[in-house]
């Protein structure tokens, strides 16, 4: 546990949020107090903490706001960027970045069979993965008619985060047909894979 103070007095938005973000990322666990000198910065820092799944306590002293955020020992910063439900008791830290709709390179028919086998087997794996991130043609697995839709929906129900790249859904014009998980962006993808054990398929 460590105690940290981030003095953001005199800084204009969005600097207080950026400083808070940097500190939260640098600190494994502990109490962080962010000091700001205006209402807007106070509200924005509280919003940021809430977005990261952390609660914030505010104390006002002499017109300055002292915002205290506690980052727990079990709290992974990855769980904040893409709310990976830590409540799923079986959820492990493994993240899969799935870049195509078939598994491996070679005959596409074989690749499709392998992908289905992979997802079905993943249902049996313990601990369950933390997140499945789908990009490029991988997003085809998350839409209506996907051969592994049932498996992905079961994983999602168990608390595995399923995210599909919004740019890719737009590109293939499949956004309307997304049938499991949520739309995400490159920021969340980068945040998620850089804070976890990630395997690219």
């Amino acid at each position: 546990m460590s105690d940290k103070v981030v003095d953001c007095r005199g800084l204009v938005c969005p600097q207080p949020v950026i400083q808070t973000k940097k500190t939260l990322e640098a600190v494994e666990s502990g109490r962080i107090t962010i000091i700001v000198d205006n209402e807007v910065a106070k509200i924005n820092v509280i919003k940021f903490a809430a977005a990261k799944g952390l609660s914030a306590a505010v104390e006002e002293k002499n017109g300055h706001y002292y915002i205290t955020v506690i980052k727990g020992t079990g709290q992974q910063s990855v769980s904040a960027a893409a709310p990976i439900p830590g409540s799923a008791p079986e959820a492990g830290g493994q993240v899969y970045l799935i870049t195509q709709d078939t598994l491996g390179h070679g005959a596409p028919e074989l690749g499709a069979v392998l992908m289905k086998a992979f997802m079905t087997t993943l249902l049996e794996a313990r601990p369950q993965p933390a997140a499945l991130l789908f990009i490029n043609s991988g997003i085809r697995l998350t839409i209506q008619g996907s051969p592994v839709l049932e498996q992905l929906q079961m994983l999602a129900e168990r608390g595995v985060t399923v995210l599909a790249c919004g740019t890719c859904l737009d590109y293939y014009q499949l956004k309307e047909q997304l049938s499991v998980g949520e739309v995400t962006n490159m920021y969340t993808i980068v945040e998620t894979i850089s804070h976890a054990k990630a395997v690219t398929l």
Partner: protein
Amino acid sequence: MPVVRLTEYSQRGGCAAKLGPGELAGVLKQLPVTFNPNVLVGIATSDDAGVYKLNATTALVQTVDFFTPIVDDPYLFGQIAAANSLSDIYAMGATPITALNLVAFPNCKLPGEVLQAILQGGQDKVAESGAVIIGGHSIADDEPKYGLTVTGLAHPDKIWTNAGAQPGDQLVLTKALGTGILTSAARADLFPQGVAAATAGMAALNAVAAKVAAGFSVHACTDITGFGLLGHLYEVAAGSKVSITVNSAALPLLPDAAEAAGMGLVPAGAYANRNYLKTVTFAEHVQENIRDICFDPQTSGGLLLAIPAKQAEELLAALHDAGLAQACLIGQVMDGGGEIYVR
């Protein structure tokens, strides 16, 4: 040219650097109102530009707008500032003809090439509009600032004001929202995809939207800028003596804007707009980040058009055909006295 981060030379960028609406209204109401029969649109109705009738067929439409850097690239800043200044002319249904540059520049801190790039951006954007820059004025200043005065022409009977919306009208918005929030994100080096979309949107002229809309019975028009969507809707509602209902689920949002708002990248101007607007009622289900986007100060935002309901779908299709894919029907006008409902 050396690489400079233009936004680091100012505390607030773009239309977020405006004085708050409450602050400004308080000062303006202290000043005496002069009456002139040729003034068709003056300061009384908080419209986008002033209109002066020259004769039975021609009215002069004039506007001025300038601000601090909203992006780091000086050429792009010039383009955005010019598109933003020209937008007020389009919002009145007029055609821009001439413009004058307004420049403040820290010539001790930044090289001349930076100023040249800003002015080149402005000039190229004005040329795209078909108007021409015929002069300008510059001063040395600690913070860079750029914008233009623009003069346009319109038929005095065909002016679009913000005061003509009628109960039953549908509201069309032609650009996606969230430029203030994404400009904050840019300063934090976050959400590059959303920032790129916001930048492209801010640099785009409202010329096409205005041209398409001119083929329809536009009852009222304004452009969405520093007072945010709801601030400008309030001007329409108050000016037209109507109330407005906004369908929050239908609002066109820039990519990443909702997520950036959710993590507190909300500019101070959004809070100022929120504090000023007391006649806004949100349905409970409208999430906080969407509320923030509704108040977010926009730079070079889209046109907001009030159009008879029976023409609305046709206008929307025509805007989409003209390449304005973000254009959406976002709400409707009802009887009332300046109230805004967001559901």
